[in-house]
């Protein structure tokens, strides 16, 4: 019983900052502290007229969309290879691909920055951010897709090939529909991670900042903080929707693959 109370208190601790977001987003005062002064939707309407913000959001959406597709494609390759084939150095190779999960993000950021700027002498752009985001999102995609590929019977694809399908069409007609929920779930998670990622984006962003980099700039100006709260409220709402869809699809994918659900994303 006391454990239950502790677990609930822990959830309160986890949600404390998020609960404050909408409170201050609708608060009619420029200082983010208590007591509250009144209700307003002023900050949300200001979001609509801030041009620089729109550019940053567009950038971030572009980066997140491409990251989602690329990391999921790489995730499919790795999860499929991991589940169906044995090859030399399997553990080492998959370990290297999963490494960004535990690597400090600043290491990923500075090493790519050095390569791009010092060695290749290229400029920074959205594509440098995408390159890094795909790197850190792929392990998450693999973790999700592993669940979908794990119990897939390789003999089903073989049967399709025996019946005259090519290797590709056997994959497309047999395996792909079975793992589809996992694929969409992986894309949504990668999208969410990329949209929210700051540490790497700050180093690798070009002339057009991503949304978190833009928010970082706003945090220095006390006057713009209520707008940040309004933006944050929208973002939290959006991520909760995306994550809920991802979770539902992940469970459906597990059920299709015939795996018993063992819990979360990781």
């Amino acid at each position, binding site marked *: 019983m006391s454990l239950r109370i502790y677990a609930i208190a822990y959830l309160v601790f986890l949600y404390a*900052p998020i609960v404050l977001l909408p409170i201050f987003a609708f608060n009619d005062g420029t200082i983010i502290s208590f007591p509250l002064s009144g209700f307003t939707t002023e900050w949300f309407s200001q979001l609509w007229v801030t041009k620089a913000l729109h550019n940053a959001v567009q950038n971030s959406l572009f980066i997140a969309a491409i990251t989602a597709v690329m990391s999921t494609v790489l995730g499919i390759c790795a999860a499929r290879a991991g589940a169906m084939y044995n090859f030399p150095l399997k553990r080492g190779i998959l370990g290297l691909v999963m490494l960004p999960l535990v690597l400090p993000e600043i290491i990923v950021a500075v090493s790519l920055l050095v390569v791009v700027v*010092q060695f290749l002498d290229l400029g920074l752009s959205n594509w440098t951010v995408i390159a890094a985001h795909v790197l850190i999102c792929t392990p998450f995609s693999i973790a999700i897709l592993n669940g979908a590929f794990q119990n897939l019977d390789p003999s089903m694809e073989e049967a399709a090939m025996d019946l005259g399908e090519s290797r590709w069409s056997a994959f497309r007609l047999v395996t792909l529909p079975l793992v589809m929920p996992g694929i969409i779930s992986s894309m949504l998670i990668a999208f969410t991670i990329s949209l929210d990622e700051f540490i790497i984006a700050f180093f690798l962003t070009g002339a057009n900042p991503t949304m978190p980099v833009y928010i970082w700039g706003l945090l220095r100006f006390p006057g713009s903080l209520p707008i940040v709260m309004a933006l944050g409220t929208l973002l939290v709402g959006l991520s909760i929707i995306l994550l809920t869809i991802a979770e539902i699809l992940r469970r459906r994918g597990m059920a299709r693959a015939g795996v018993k659900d063992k819990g979360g994303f990781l």
Partner: protein
Amino acid sequence: MVSPPLGYALMLLAVPLSAIILFSFWTQNFMDVDTTFTLNNYREIITEPIYFALLKRSLFVSGTVTCVTVLLAFPVAYFVSFHVPAHRKSLWLFLITIPFWTSYLIRVFLWKVILGYNGVVNTGLINLGIIDEPLTFILYNINAVIITLAHAFAPFAILPIFVALEKIDRSLLEASQDLGESKVSTFFRVTLPLSMPGLVAAVLIVFIPTIGDYVTPELMGGAGGKLIANMIQTQFLALNNAPLGAALAIVAMICVTAVSLLFVFLNRRYLRGRS
């Protein structure tokens, strides 16, 4: 089949990591980079006390955050694994992971609002009559950095422990109690050793990435709470001394890896000592 992700990881992880190691042996020469091999950056890191102090503080913060996070997380993982009915487990895990995915920057900033001089904690405690003066030891110092990071990395600690606890054969616990162990000693002699792989994973997955976070110390740490990652960031983006920043990043990485390996080694010895 594995070659595309492998190729990507080699191109964008292995090559850049090698490049930054090479780069750390070069020096910044005003506007351009001098490519003669030299140990000057490393020599500067060893001789200037500021770097050593930052490194020590960073390792202390990462270590404390890891202890706090894992100790706080274990009972939650235990509760979800042992006391929540099977069909509700996914829901609990989902609830635990949601805050982790949402707007990291704003979440860190909001801790400032919670812990600040006129923040939620202080106004709450004053209104309840528990304190007269706002508490000042919880903002713009290391404590604030530790609280915020412990919050940010919570799910990273809960999930691996939960997975390890789920794998424990429940009949072992019954057997232990049938053989006369109390509930407490069953926990320490059966449950805890069997959950060790998850605990080790949780420690590593919290300890290693926290060293690379510069957002939390920047926003929460004040003047005395800056960490090594802030220094790396400054060397790269403000002071225009990228080779020194690269060397600092490598030194930080080596320290973290050394501590992690030591931890894994000690843990193996502990487990072997028991069996």
